[in-house]
């Protein structure tokens, strides 16, 4: 009913920069038009739209600006970093079920300005679950992830030198990607070890970029996909995930807080998939913070619990390693768009036209944020 029934047939990206002049609305339209052009599909054919609950450009504005026709399916996936794969998966479901025919998913975000950072808007009176951590000094997402990373280090002995490999590997890929914000900047282990702490044990380079841009993808039925301009990338399996007793970002209250929502997502993803972790050629793992990559490597079964630091330190995340990860530079070194660049890079890898092309790549795992309700996709060509 779902497996391989839909495909990603178009991807579109705006310029990526620290600060762009255009509004999020303008950038959204531009990315969507580029994705439709990439697919060779006219805007009037689009009848399904999906985005994040954090997206601030409404669907109707996008539809009437880009020139879409009658729309039959509208969806939003919860939160920010956790939402990307869910937003894509919801579109795929609607198309596989026959509700819609051509779907567009997008994320447009201007975050380069310090005033645009989520935590900068913390209200003076906190009414929701954040009341139990923000007044107590866990103000930013990095502080919340630092708590989990500290606990992980305590339980498994992860060293900063091992964690560093995540940022170093992503930066190496970005150095081969002219669009990446960090394209021109080399990063060494010494620089990493001497960098200022943002929330100990997480230093500057463990944090994603603050940047502006937009990305869109076009999906359609697999039997329609073969008529499109570019080779289709099939959506093989999809799941969302949220563990029992999960709390958004400050996930400290379950019996085993280091068993994140990714574990719930992974079990149900692999249950549906003919492709297992050992068959994955390349992965795009959500990396707003470097430790999330390590946590995800374990949750999705690429190594055992507590082994991700050593797995990374052996060079496995790099081109030529067992599992090249975030091959465009990811959120740490290419662009931070709540993970949407991970999806477009997956498509590029499976089309065979990525800048750092992993030879023979035919399967790719894409994941969303480990520390929120999330999602994941198994893609194949």
């Amino acid at each position, binding site marked *: 009913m779902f497996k391989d029934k839909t495909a990603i047939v178009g991807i579109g990206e705006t310029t990526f920069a620290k600060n762009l002049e255009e509004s999020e609305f303008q950038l959204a339209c531009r990315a969507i038009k580029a994705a439709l052009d990439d697919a060779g599909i006219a805007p009037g054919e689009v009848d399904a739209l999906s985005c994040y609950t954090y997206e601030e450009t409404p669907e109707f504005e996008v539809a009437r600006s880009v020139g879409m026709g009658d729309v039959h399916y509208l969806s939003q996936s919860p939160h920010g970093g956790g939402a990307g794969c869910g937003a894509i998966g919801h579109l795929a479901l609607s198309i596989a079920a026959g509700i819609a025919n051509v779907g567009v998913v997008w994320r447009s975000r201007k975050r380069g300005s310090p005033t645009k950072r989520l935590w900068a808007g*913390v*209200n*003076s009176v*906190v009414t929701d*679950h954040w009341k139990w951590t923000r*007044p107590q000094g866990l103000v930013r997402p990095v*502080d919340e992830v*630092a708590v989990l990373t500290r*606990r992980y280090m305590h339980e498994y002995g992860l060293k900063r030198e091992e964690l560093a490999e995540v940022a170093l590997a992503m930066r190496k890929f970005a150095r081969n990607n002219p669009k990446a914000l960090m394209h021109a900047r080399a990063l060494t282990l010494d620089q990493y070890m001497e960098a200022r702490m943002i929330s100990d044990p997480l230093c500057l380079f463990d944090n994603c970029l603050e940047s502006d841009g937009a990305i869109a993808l076009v999906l359609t039925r697999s039997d329609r996909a073969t008529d499109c301009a570019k080779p289709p990338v099939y959506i093989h399996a999809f799941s969302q995930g949220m563990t029992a007793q999960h709390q958004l970002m400050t996930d400290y*209250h379950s019996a085993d807080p280091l068993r994140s929502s990714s574990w719930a997502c992974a079990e149900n993803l692999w249950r549906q998939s003919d492709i297992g972790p050992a068959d994955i050629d390349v992965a795009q793992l959500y990396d707003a913070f470097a430790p999330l990559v390590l946590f995800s490597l374990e949750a999705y079964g690429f190594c055992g619990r507590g082994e991700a630091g050593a797995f990374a330190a052996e060079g496995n995340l790099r081109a030529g390693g067992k599992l090249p990860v975030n091959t465009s530079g990811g959120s740490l070194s290419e662009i931070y768009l709540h993970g949407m660049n991970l999806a477009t890079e997956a498509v590029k890898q499976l089309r065979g036209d990525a800048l750092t092309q992993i030879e023979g790549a035919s399967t790719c795992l894409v994941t969303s944020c480990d520390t929120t309700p999330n999602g994941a996709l198994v893609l194949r060509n």
Partner: protein
Amino acid sequence: MIEGMPLPATDDPLDREFWSKARDGKLVVQACGDCGTSRFPPRPMCPHCQSENVTWRDDPGTATIWSFATPRPPLLPAFEAITPYITVIGALDSDPMIRIAGMAVTGADDAFTGLTAEDVEIGQPLTIHFQTVSPDCALPVWRLGPRI
């Protein structure tokens, strides 16, 4: 007390008992009125037996550090002004599944500025204390016990 610091709403029927007792310097933990299971943060229904009956049990407020963070700038101005500080997650001795965040405090005046990662470790004992930060809010903070 700290200019511009975000404060919790303390009048929500869901958790106002916690904040009311906090103003008296006492820790209470929400527990199911039927099966007795403790839960934190407060919520409307027991996840074990689905009862909406709620009780609040007194807790001695002794705990150990489950984990901690040491936020450094850039921060909200209110927090930037008090760095270096540490926020610890304390796991209650009475039920280690109940984990409560609060700033670590030290010395006779319960100061939270001046603490660094070298001053604390996971497993270190803690005792809860409530610091008045506005007329209707006393925030839980953790007094540090000796290093283990």
